[in-house]
């Protein structure tokens, strides 16, 4: 690692949404850190430009917060502004929660995401389903979370590539010109042995780590017929990749069992498979990548947001 000064400001607010919006928690964090060789010196010094940028961003997000009719909707607004290598980068995120469901939204998609969250949350899980007994259709870009775990994290760990369907491409496409160590970022081919280029950190006091930034899956000529009986995944709560066994665990928080014209909500379930099994399970895909509302990825105690985009995917685990 090379010498570089990094500065960061984070504003974090917890709002309860409803007929009126109530601000319950408000946090400001700022500091700078200097990396020399394998030593980091960090102190909570303010960066006036970042303070101003982040205040401007969070004011804009506050104005967008919806007033949903349902009680129990919360929004955690997190705006970070970072300075590295002369570049200033801001990132506004809104983590929406309702009942046991959550989404990570952006200012541009907040209204639509909130409506979708309420729609999904209006139905309770009523039946258990064996995810190996049915084909799975990954709606709303949720397949990106599957590929984040099965292709993205192995790439972070430098694990050897495996065989993936030839119609599938998955890249990490950082939305920032430089990373948190001031190095230029680049697109990485996650299926072809590429490693994510960006070193990222959750705060000024954290060690920069090689992390995913923005997972984008694309397909070419992989049409499929929608199975009459299928599971449709709507929301994924969390995922995990175990590097020692190269297995993934995916916690599906909302999914429907569809049989012809009828649809019943499944209780939350966990998909546990090897990454090879995930690759073998991919049967087809359709359409352009769709943004999945949110992955907050945790590694070494550092939580960072990772963009997630995937086309409609069909898998069949056996």
């Amino acid at each position, binding site marked *: *690692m090379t010498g570089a000064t990094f500065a960061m400001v984070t504003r974090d607010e917890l709002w309860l949404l409803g007929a009126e919006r109530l*601000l*319950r*928690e*408000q*946090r*400001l*964090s*700022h*500091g700078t850190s200097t990396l020399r060789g*394998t*030593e*980091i*010196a*960090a*102190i*909570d*010094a*303010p960066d006036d430009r970042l303070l101003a940028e982040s205040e401007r961003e969070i004011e804009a997000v506050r104005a967008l917060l919806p007033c949903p009719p349902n009680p129990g909707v919360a929004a955690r607004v997190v705006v970070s502004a970072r300075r590295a290598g002369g570049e200033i980068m801001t990132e506004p995120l809104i983590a929406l929660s309702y009942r046991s469901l959550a989404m990570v939204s952006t200012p541009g998609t907040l209204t639509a995401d909130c409506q979708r969250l309420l729609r999904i949350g209006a139905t309770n899980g009523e039946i258990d389903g064996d995810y190996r007994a049915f084909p799975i259709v990954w709606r709303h870009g949720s397949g990106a979370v599957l590929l984040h775990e099965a292709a993205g994290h192995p790439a972070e760990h430098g694990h050897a590539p495996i065989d993936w369907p030839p119609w599938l491409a998955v890249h990490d496409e950082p939305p920032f010109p430089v990373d948190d160590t001031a190095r230029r970022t680049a697109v990485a081919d996650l299926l072809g042995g590429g490693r994510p280029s960006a070193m990222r950190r959750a705060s000024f*006091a*954290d*060690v920069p780590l090689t992390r995913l930034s923005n997972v984008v899956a694309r397909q070419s000529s992989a049409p499929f017929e929608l199975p009459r009986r299928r599971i449709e995944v709507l929301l994924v709560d969390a995922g995990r990749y175990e590097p*020692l*066994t190269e297995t993934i665990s995916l916690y599906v928080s909302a999914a429907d069992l569809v049989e012809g014209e009828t649809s019943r909500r499944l209780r939350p379930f966990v998909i546990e498979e090897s990454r090879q099994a995930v690759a073998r399970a991919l049967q087809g895909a359709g359409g352009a990548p769709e943004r999945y509302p949110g992955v907050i990825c945790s590694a*070494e105690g550092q939580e960072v947001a990772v963009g997630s985009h995937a086309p409609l995917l069909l898998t069949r685990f056996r």
Partner: protein
Amino acid sequence: MIEVYRKRGSIVRYENGVLVRVREAGRAVEEGAFFRCTPAPGTAPLPEKDAGDVLDAVRRIESVVSAPLRIERLIVTDGSAEHELGERRWSDKTGRIHLSIVHRAWRVLIDEGSLEGGGIESIAGAFARLEGEREAPPRLRLAPRVTAALTPSLFGVDPPNVRLEQVAGGVDGKGEPIGAVAAPPWPNWYRPSYRVRPQRTALNVAVRCSVSVIEEGLPQAIAVLEPPRGLDMRLLCVDGGHVFITTVRVVRIEAVAEPSAWYPFAAGVWAGEAEVVS
């Protein structure tokens, strides 16, 4: 009522090959249901911590973990902090080790509440001799660190024969003395950072049992492979000259010895050996 809490701290942390020094000061305000916190950069910072103790701990740990084992994660932290709430002033020091050691496709997790790291050498020695996985023995002795890892899972479970108590000592997140408390409601406040809203919980918890004599000769669980999932645990065990991994569901706690060490689980745990039925 408005409560204003101030903290300034200095830590040095070794994290997987990188040495991090952090100095910061902050202020947290609670006003009814509203909580806010900000840095307080005008506050004179505490002096930078010397890294000697941290690096000594790292060297000791690295010297006892060798092939076929490898260190997957090593975080050693040494910190000092000064706190202020109204008229109250207090200070504290913290030392923590978080270590994960890998042998083939297995991992043991070790969390220590001091920089001494006692016991790591014996765990590493046993882990290196690992033979494989076995069925859970019907009865097990849990080393204090394993009892400690299990303790947070016992809240709300109300296992027969045991109770959870708060052990007296130190001060809480609002500067009040931590007293001995035998049952909820827990009067003390947990505040691990000025950025975290304090909450009432049991601090420095110990598991108490009417039986405190542990049967010798039982297989002994000396470390956990992962955080417990409720009462289900993956454990590294020693039985005579044999070392194996097993998965147990703790169905009864037969005995708990007097606490002998403090561990950084939840809001702190004092733990001793325990005897359990699986």
